[in-house]
Structure formats: C-alpha cells, structure tokens
C-alpha cells in the first residue's frame, strides 16, 4: 500500500515548482519589453531547474511511496484535495520538464520575435501545468492540469507556428480534448464507484469490478492513447510537430507525449489491472504496428520535422510495448525510453530549429553537405542521431535493449518485430543524416551558413551530456525508478488475484 | 348538466386550432390572433375547472391572463407598426434580414 510521505523540507518544494512559473507568467503580463520578458522567463526556468536539485537530492529511492507530499482540502464538497507528491516514476519527468522548458526558452531567444511576452507567458503556464500533471495525486487535480496544458500548447502552435499552424493547432486541441473528456467521465465513474474519492492512492487500493474496469480502462485509454500517441490515434502528431515552433516541438515531443504513457503507468495499470491484462494483447499489437508504421512513414518523409515526428510515433511504440509487457524490465525500459526520447527527440527538434532559423526551410532536399560548413552543428546532430538509433554507449541503446528484453519475456514475436523496428530506425536516421550533412552542398543558400552560436551550444550541451550519462551509467536512472516499478508490478499482481484466471496470467507474465 | 369533459374538449379543440394557426399562417396578425385563441382555450379550461371545483383560483388566473394578453398585444402591435414602418412587411417569412 502506497503512502503519501509528507514533505519534510520545511518549504513546499513541489508547490513551488508548480506555482513559480505561474507567478513568473503573471509578472510577465505586466512587462512590455521583449528582452526583459525573455530574461525573466529564463530566470524563472533556471530557478525551476535549481529547485530540482533539492528534489533529486532528497529523493529516497528506497521506497515506492509518494514523497514530498502535500495535501490540503480544496473543494471539500466534492472531496477534492490538493494532493501532490512524486515517486520514482514521476520524479524524472519533473526534472526533465524543467530542463526542456529552459532549453525551449533558450532556443526561442531569437526565433520568436513576434509577441515575445505572450510566448513566454504561454511557456511558463505550460511548465506549471506539466509539472502539475506529474505531481498530482488527486485525479481531479490531475485532470485540471492535464486539460489546462491544452491552452498554452494550442496557442504555441497556433500563434507562433508554421504556415499551416491553424489546422494543426485545432487538430491537436480537438484530438486531445475528445480523448480527455472521455477520461473525465471515467474519472467521475471511478469516483462514485470507489465511494466518492479522487485520491489516487486510495483508488489504487480499491478493487473495481471486472466489467467496470473494462470500460473505465477504455475511457482512460482514449485520453492516454491520443496523447502518446498510439497508432491509429497519432495523426495529429505529425501536423502539430511540423507546424509548432521549435520550442513547442521540443516540449511536445519531450514532455507532452510522455504524459500518455505516464498516465498508463500511474492510473490505468494500478487502477484496472484486470482490464490491463485483458487489453494487453491488443495494445501490444498496436505498439508493434506503431513501431513499424512509424518507421516506414519516416522513410517516406521529405520534411525534417515530419520525419522526426514519425520517428516519435515509432519510438513511443517501444515505450508502450515496454509498459504493457507488464514485467519489470519492460516497465523500467519503457520509463527510461521515455526519458531518452525526451532527451534525444528534444535535441533533434532543437537541431531542426537551429538549422531552420538559418535556412527557413525544413525540406531535406534543401540541405545536403552542410557538415563541412557547420562542423559543430554536424557533430551535435551526429550524436543525437546515434542516440536515437540506439547505439551502445548512448542512452537509446539502454532503453531499447531493456524494452526488447521485457517484450521477449512477454512474447517472443513482439521482441522480434521490435528489433526489426530498431533496424528500420537506424536506416532512416542514418539516411537522414546522410542527406543533411554529407555530400556536396547542393543548395547555394547553404554556402554561408553560420555555425551554432554560444547560446545554442549551451542549450544543446545538457542534452548531449544526458545522452552519454544515461548511456554509460543507466543505473542512476534505474535506481530512482526501481522501487516504484517493482511496487507497481507487485501491486497489480496482488490486486488482480481476485480473479484466479487473471492472476495466473499475471504470474506467468511476471515470471513468478 | 354539462359534463366537465365537454368543456375540456372544447378548449382542447380551440387550443389546437390556435396552434395550427400559429404554425401554418404567415401573416403576423393572424399568428397573434391564433395565440389569443390558445389563451382563450386555457381560459375556458380554467373557468370550467373553477366552476366544477368550486374554487375561485381559476377565475383569478383568467383575470391575470387577460391582463397579460392586453399588455402583450400592445407591445406586439407597436413592434409590428415599427416593422411595417421600417420594412413594409407583415409576413413572417419575409422577415428576411435575419436568416430565419
């Protein structure tokens, strides 16, 4: 049974993390100067990163309990509380969020010239909402943050996006909203079934009826699958990625689409273990389809961003494959791969942003041979490409390898297909790199490209470091998450035992 | 001795004639008059019930219905005068600045 361990730091760390950006945004509303707005936003985001240090330092990886917990009554008539806390599953995302937000603000420094203040306000609101999503331990609170995220993201895409931004923004908004509202109904049903509580920890312990689990799972799935996005709910993603500004793409790929998978881990699996097992085959199939389909589509793309977007579909297929393998390797692999993907895809979009700012084109045909002109950039891109492929020594390798291990234990065929996906991934990424960096300079505009400047390097550096850090010393990450994932497996097992047949299946899956 | 149901059925028929008038006619005056028919149907009902129940509430209600009908007619006709002054139409399907 998980508990909410109260925060003992003496200051409400998580609340600060959540609300400092909002406070910053409100301050920004009063600022008229664009440069000042940039600096304020940057400072706020750096403060957030700073706050992550005590968070990680004081985190106790030995327990699966929720830490840094805060709880107070919010809407007492509905038994809604402001309950927040982090465990091994969510803490890494909180940290990643602060990091990627800072990077996004940095890459937007010159890319965004229009309505800077509003842009920064949106970024900061977004950061608050994202951290809130990961920290919320009350379903209602979670939903509030989950939905609130849509507003700034919609604006980021719609106002500062590319030429087709309106279509992409609306599509993004509607897809995710439809999924979310279905989840809302399920949340309400869960609330009433469990006797009137939104408390996530209490709900984890509540044993829902089998039929109820099935449809409630389906409703939650609607929200999370769209967000991940799983095939066939992914069609908003390429549009959104392509049209979003660089910062938007980084956040979108780095954090937002992780939330779907996070939702599976935090809610779907512990709440509805029976339904999870029931739906697992279907989800596994969808996952491998996504892996292959995403890779296949990536081959066909001529647009840099679109290619990365489809690669995301493929990579997120790995994540769901790992999670629904329902064993510790799969889970941990999936989790780690989420972080990895956040880092590497974030970096890839950063790379696109850097080059786009100079060439104002994203068509691969317009590049070619730029390695000679911009060596730093080419190196950076190379490292990220290799990480994305999963070259040993980089973070991608660890994640994908662990997932395939988990999938192998679940069912061999999935592991085989997933491996095929890795090979395809290597193919399109390398081909991409070749088209961009190698060969002769075909486009005369690229003759006078300038290399990455200091600001961009500073923005990219943390990501490069993370690529290697995780690749070389993955245990640091695994350690943080291990207790929580183990507990999750055991919890499911224990909870699903009410149904003997299912229990056996879980037993078989988890190797007990 | 007239059964109560006779009155109620009379009023039901009158009410329906009023409804049909509202729905089918295009002349705004006739629509207004059809609405008056509906009100009168309700009035017959009220008074019949009032008589059979031996309580005056129904009659009181009718007094107020008639009052309201008068006030409403005044405003309605003022609006129609305006409409004719500005647009020269009294047919509801010719009220076509608004899409309808």
């Amino acid at each position, binding site marked *: 049974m998980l508990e909410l361990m109260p925060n003992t730091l003496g200051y409400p760390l998580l609340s600060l993390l959540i609300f400092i950006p909002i406070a910053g945004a409100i301050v920004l509303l009063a600022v008229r100067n664009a440069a000042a707005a940039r600096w304020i936003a940057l400072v706020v985001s750096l403060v957030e990163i700073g706050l992550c240090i005590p968070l990680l330092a004081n985190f106790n990886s030995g327990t699966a309990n929720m830490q840094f917990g805060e709880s107070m009554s919010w809407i007492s008539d509905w038994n809604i509380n402001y309950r927040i806390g982090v465990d091994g599953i969510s803490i890494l995302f909180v940290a990643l969020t602060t990091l990627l937000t800072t990077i996004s603000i940095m890459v937007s420094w010159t890319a965004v010239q229009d309505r800077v203040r509003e842009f920064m306000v949106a970024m900061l609101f977004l950061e608050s909402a994202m951290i809130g999503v990961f920290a919320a331990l009350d379903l209602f609170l979670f939903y509030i943050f989950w939905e609130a995220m849509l507003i700034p993201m919609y604006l980021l895409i719609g106002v500062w996006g590319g030429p087709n931004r309106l279509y992409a923004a609306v599509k993004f908004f509607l897809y995710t909203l439809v999924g979310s509202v279905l989840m809302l109904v399920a949340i309400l049903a869960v609330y009433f079934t469990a006797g009137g509580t939104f408390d996530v920890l209490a709900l984890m312990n509540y044993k829902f009826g089998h039929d109820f689990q099935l449809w409630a799972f389906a409703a939650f799935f609607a929200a999370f699958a769209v967000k991940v996005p799983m095939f066939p709910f992914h069609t908003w993603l390429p549009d959104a990625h392509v049209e979003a500004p660089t910062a938007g793409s980084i956040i979108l790929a780095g954090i937002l689409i992780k939330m779907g998978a996070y939702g599976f881990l935090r809610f779907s699996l512990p709440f509805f273990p029976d339904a999870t097992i029931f739906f697992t085959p279907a989800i596994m199939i969808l996952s491998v389809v996504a892996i292959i389909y995403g890779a296949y589509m990536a081959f066909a793309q001529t647009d840099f961003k679109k290619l990365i977007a489809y690669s995301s579909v493929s990579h997120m297929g790995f994540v769901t494959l790992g999670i629904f393998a329902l064993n510790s390797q799969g889970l941990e692999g999936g989790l780690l791969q989420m972080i990895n993907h956040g880092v590497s895809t974030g970096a890839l979009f950063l790379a696109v942003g850097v080059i786009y700012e100079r060439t104002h084109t994203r068509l691969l045909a317009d590049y070619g041979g730029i390695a000679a002109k911009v060596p730093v950039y080419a190196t950076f891109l190379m490292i990220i490409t290799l990480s994305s492929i999963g070259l040993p020594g980089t973070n991608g390798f660890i994640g994908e390898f662990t997932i395939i291990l988990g999938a192998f234990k679940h069912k061999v065929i999935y592991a085989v297909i997933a491996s095929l996906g890795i090979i395809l991934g290597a193919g399109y990424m390398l081909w991409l790199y070749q088209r961009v960096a190698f060969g002769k300079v075909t486009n005369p505009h690229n003759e006078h490209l300038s290399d990455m400047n200091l600001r961009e390097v500073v923005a990219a550096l943390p990501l490069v470091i993370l690529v290697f850090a995780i690749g070389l010393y993955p245990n640091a990450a695994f350690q943080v998450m291990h207790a929580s994932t183990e507990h999750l497996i055991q919890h499911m097992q224990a909870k699903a035992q009410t149904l003997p047949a299912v229990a056996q299946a879980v037993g078989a899956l988890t190797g007990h | *001795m*007239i059964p*109560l*149901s*006779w*009155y*109620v*059925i*009379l009023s*039901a028929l*009158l*009410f*329906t*004639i*009023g*409804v*049909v*008038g509202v*729905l*089918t*006619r*295009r*002349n705004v005056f*006739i629509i*207004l*008059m059809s609405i*008056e*028919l509906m009100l*009168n149907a309700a*009035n017959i009902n009220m*008074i*019949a*019930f*009032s*008589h*059979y*129940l*031996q309580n*005056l*509430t129904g*009659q*009181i209600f*009718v*007094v*107020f219905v*008639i*009052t*309201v009908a*008068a*006030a409403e*007619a*005044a*405003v309605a*006709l*003022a609006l*129609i*005068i*305006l409409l*004719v002054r500005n647009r020269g139409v009294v047919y509801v*399907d010719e009220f076509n600045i608004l899409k309808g």
Partner: protein
Amino acid sequence: MINQLVFAYFAVVILFSAIMTISRRNPIHSVLFMLLLFFHIAGVFVLLNAEFLAAVQLIVYAGAILILYLFVVMLLQVDRETKSSRANRFWPWLTAFGVIIATEIALLVLRGSFPGENGVMMRTMPGTGVKELGIELYSKYLVPFEIASVLLLVGLIGAVLLAKKDAKE
C-alpha cells in the same frame, strides 16, 4: 337539456369562428370572426357562472385588445393580401398534425379524470361571485395583482416607446 343545447350552440360557433379566424385571407375578417368568438366564449363563461369574467372578456378582449388589432390592421393597410398563398407550404401536414394532437388531447381527457368532475353545477359559492373574486384578488392574490400592475405599466411604456415617432425622425 337547454343548457346542453346552449353549450352545443356556443361550442359550434366558437369552433367555427376559430377556424374562420385562422383561415381568412383578409385579417380584418379574421378579427371580426374573432369578435364573434369572444362573444360566444363570454357566453360559455356565463354558462359556468362566471359573469364577471364574461364581462371582462368583452371589455378587455373585445373592447381593447381586438379593437387594437383592428386599428393596426386598418392603419397599416395590410388588409390586401398580396401573395397567393396565405399559409406556409407545410400547412396540410401541420393541419393534420393539429388534428392528431387535438384527437389525442381529447382522448387523454376522456380517459383521464378530474377531481371536480362529479361536482354539482349549482352554485354553492355565496353571493354574486364578484365580491368573493375581489376579496381573493386583493388578499390571497395580492402579489400577482401588484405584478400585473407593473406588467401593464411595462406594456404601456413599450407601446409608447416603440410606436411613437421621434420628432427628428
């Protein structure tokens, strides 16, 4: 017997003039049929021992509301229908719908029951009825009475405000 015949006469004329009201091409004829209708409804009221309301029906409905209609119809000179069709094109369907609804209501009323149905037709209320009505109106239904006065004021304001021409217009 006599009462029933009288009722039958009233009912037939009421329904006839109602149908004529909604079917005439010339609104002035409609108004005149409406007048006929009001007289007979007043008659029905008298049958139901509601003489006061019969008078009010004539004074207010016939004497004020309907005459206002007549005034406006005549003043606006809209008595000549210019279009060939007087009803919208769905009128046969709507009329059929009306017939069905009327039948339905009638059947429901016949099948249903009203508590007062077995009441006697003799007046047991003391006095003339007008006095009692007045007392109820000024005591029990004082609030509605006051509202009605405000309502009439609003009607007055509205009519003056809307229909009056500005000096500059």
